[in-house]
C-alpha cells in the first residue's frame, strides 16, 4: 500500500520532540499534560496527533511551535534544541513553523483587513518589496487557498467572512513566510461538515504541492485517515503517546486496546452491523483525571485486556510491536500484536 512509499526516516527529521513533558502547577497539584512524549516529523510528511479532549494534543503542539517551553525534554528543529538557539536562529525557526488555530473567529485580528493581515509579515520580513508587490503576493496566497477572485476578499474585514473563509485566510497567513512545517490544531473542527471537507481537500493539495510538513491535530480518526493516510499517526491518551505508526496500520490494524476502542467507536452506516458489533471492550467510560492518574498504565481502569499485577504496576513504554508500529501496552508487548478480528 502507499504506506510503503513513505521513506523510513531517510531524511533528517524536521522537528523532533524527544521526551518532552509539560507539567502545569495547579491548586489540585501538578498536572502532567504531556508526559515524556516522543514525536518526529520528516520534511513534507504528515503526522497526525489523535486523542480525546484533555489528552495533551494541543499542549504538545504548542511546545512544538515554541509557544511554550517544555518542563522537561527537548524540542528539536532541524537537529538543534530550539531553546538553545540564539535570537536570530530562533526567529528563523519561528518563521519556519506556522500554526493554524482551531477557532477562525479568534485567530484573525478584527480591526485589520485581510490584505493588512497578509501583507504585514511579507513586508516585515522582506519577502517582497513594496506595497504593490505585497498586495499581489497576498492575492496569490488567497488564490492558493481557493478564495477567488482575491480582489473580493482583500479589502474585507474578518467579520465580513464566513467561518470557512476565515479559516482559509488563516491558512494563507500561515503560508506567507513559506514555512517548512504547519501545525494545524483542530483546524477543521469548528467548521460545518460541508465546509470541512473542502478545507481539508485544500490543505491536502497544499501538502502535495508545496511539500510542507504537517503536524495535524485532531480528535477525529476519520479526518486523520483522510488527511494523513500517507503519513503517520500518534494516538495520545492522558498526556502519553500510546500508539504510533503509519496511519493505515493505526486505522486498519490497531494494536493498543485504546486505539482499538477508538476505532470500534466509529459508527457503522449499516444499522444491522452496528447492532451486531461488540458493545466495545471498555470496562469503564469514565476518563480519569489528569491530576490523579491511575497507577501503571493510565488506561488500565478502562481496558478490556487489563491484567492485575501487570498493568497497574509500571508505566508501559512505547515499544515496537510491528514494522514501524509501536504501542505502549504491557499485554501487547508480552503477547505480540495479534491480528485484528475485523
Amino acid at each position, binding site marked *: 500500500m502507499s504506506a510503503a512509499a513513505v521513506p523510513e526516516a531517510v531524511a533528517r527529521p524536521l522537528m523532533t520532540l524527544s521526551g518532552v513533558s509539560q507539567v502545569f502547577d495547579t491548586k489540585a497539584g501538578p498536572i502532567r499534560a504531556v508526559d515524556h512524549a516522543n514525536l518526529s516529523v520528516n520534511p513534507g510528511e504528515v503526522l497526525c496527533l489523535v486523542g480525546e479532549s484533555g489528552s495533551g494534543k494541543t499542549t504538545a503542539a504548542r511546545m512544538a511551535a515554541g*509557544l511554550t517551553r517544555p518542563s522537561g525534554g527537548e524540542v528539536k528543529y532541524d537537529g538543534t534544541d530550539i531553546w538553545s538557539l540564539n535570537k536570530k536562529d530562533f526567529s528563523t525557526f519561528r*518563521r519556519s513553523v506556522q*500554526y493554524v488555530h482551531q477557532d477562525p473567529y479568534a*485567530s484573525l485580528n478584527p480591526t485589520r483587513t485581510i490584505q493588512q493581515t497578509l501583507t504585514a509579515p511579507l513586508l*516585515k520580513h522582506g519577502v517582497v518589496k513594496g506595497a504593490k508587490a505585497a*498586495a499581489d503576493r497576498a492575492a496569490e496566497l488567497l488564490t492558493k487557498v481557493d478564495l477567488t477572485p482575491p480582489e*473580493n476578499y482583500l479589502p*474585507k474585514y474578518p467579520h*465580513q467572512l464566513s467561518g470557512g473563509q476565515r479559516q482559509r485566510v*488563516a491558512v494563507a497567513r500561515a503560508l506567507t513566510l513559506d514555512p517548512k512545517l504547519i501545525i494545524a490544531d483542530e483546524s477543521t473542527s469548528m467548521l460545518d461538515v460541508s465546509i470541512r471537507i473542502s478545507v481539508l481537500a485544500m490543505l491536502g493539495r497544499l501538502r502535495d504541492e508545496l511539500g510542507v510538513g504537517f503536524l495535524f491535530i485532531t480528535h477525529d480518526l476519520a479526518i486523520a485517515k483522510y488527511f494523513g493516510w500517507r503519513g503517520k499517526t500518534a494516538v495520545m491518551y492522558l498526556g502519553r503517546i500510546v500508539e504510533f505508526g503509519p496511519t493505515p496500520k493505526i486505522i486498519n490494524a490497531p494494536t493498543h486496546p485504546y486505539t482499538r476502542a477508538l476505532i470500534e467507536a466509529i459508527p457503522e452506516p449499516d444499522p444491522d452491523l452496528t447492532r451486531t458489533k461488540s458493545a466495545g471492550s471498555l470496562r469503564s467510560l469514565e476518563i480519569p483525571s489528569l491530576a490523579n492518574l491511575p497507577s501503571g498504565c493510565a488506561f488500565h481502569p478502562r481496558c478490556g485486556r487489563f491484567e492485575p499485577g501487570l498493568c497497574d504496576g509500571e508505566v508501559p513504554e512505547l515499544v515496537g510491536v510491528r514494522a514501524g508500529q509501536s504501542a505502549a501496552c504491557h499485554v501487547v508487548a508480552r503477547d505480540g500484536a495479534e491480528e485484528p478480528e475485523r
Partner: protein
Amino acid sequence: MATETVTSGAVAAIGTTGVSRFAGILSALRRSPAGFIGFLIVAFLVLVTAIGPFFTPTVEPNVKEILLPLGSPGHLLGTDNEGKDVLIQMIDGGRSVIFIGFLAAAISTALAIVLGSLAAYLGGWVDSAVVTAADVVLTVPQIVLLAVLGALFKLDSPFLLAVLVGGLSWPVLTRAVRSQVLSLKEREFVEAARLLDLGTARVVFVEILPNMASFILMNFMIGVTNAIYSLVGLYLLGLAPLTGSNWGIMLNRAWIAGAIFNDASLGFILSPVVAIVLLLLGLVMMTRSLEEILNPRLRDR
C-alpha cells in the same frame, strides 16, 4: 501608508480617495444623531474661540455699564463688574482652556498607552515598575499638588500647565490600558502575530491597540474633561496666575466679586459655566460617532 487605507468592500462607506474618505467619515458621523450633535457643538465652540478673537474688539472697563443683565442692547450676555462685555470675553477666553485641555489629555493618554501596553505585554520588571509608579502618582492628591506647585512656580505658560495636568493624570488610564492589553494579548490573533515574528512594537501598537481604539478615545475625551476641570479649579481657587482672560479666570473673578448673590450678574457667572458644560457634553457625545468610525464592525451597519 497606502496599504493602511481603510475600505469596506460591499458597503463602500469609506472609500480610498481623500475626498470620498472624508465624505465617508462625515456620513459615519451622521449615523448617530447624538454623536453628530456633539460633533457640531464641539466644532462650533472650537471654531468660535479659535477664529473669533481675530474679529472681536478689545474690551475696556466701562464704569457706566457695570453688571448689565443678559440681553442688554449691545451686550448680549451682559457685562461684568468692571463693565466689560461678557460675550467678547467668552469668545476670547476659550482658546487657552480648550488648548490646555486637549494637550494635557494628549500627554496623559500617550503616556498611558505606551506605559500601560508595554507593562502588560512585556510583564516582569517593566510591569512592576510601571504599576508602582502609577500607584505612587495615583496616591498624590492632584489638586493639592497643583496648588503647591502653583504657589512655588509661576504657572503662566499654558504649555507648562498642560504638562503638569497631563503628567499627573496618566495613572488611571495606564492601569485600565494595562488590564485591557493583559486580556487582549492572550487572544489567538496576537499569538499568530507573534508566530509571524512581527516584532514587539508592531504586535503591541498595530495588532493590539486598534482593538481598544474606541476605549482609548473615550478615555481621551474623559481626560480632556478632567484636565479642563482641574484647570478651571486652579483658576477658581486663584492658584494659577490670573493674567489675561479665559473662562477659568472669568469664573474666579465672578466668584470673588460675589456675582452669585446678584441677579444682574447671572450672565457674568453662568456664561463660562455653560460654555464649559457644553464643551464637555459635546466631547462625550461625539465619542459615540468616533466609536463607529474606529470599529469596523459598527461601521457596516
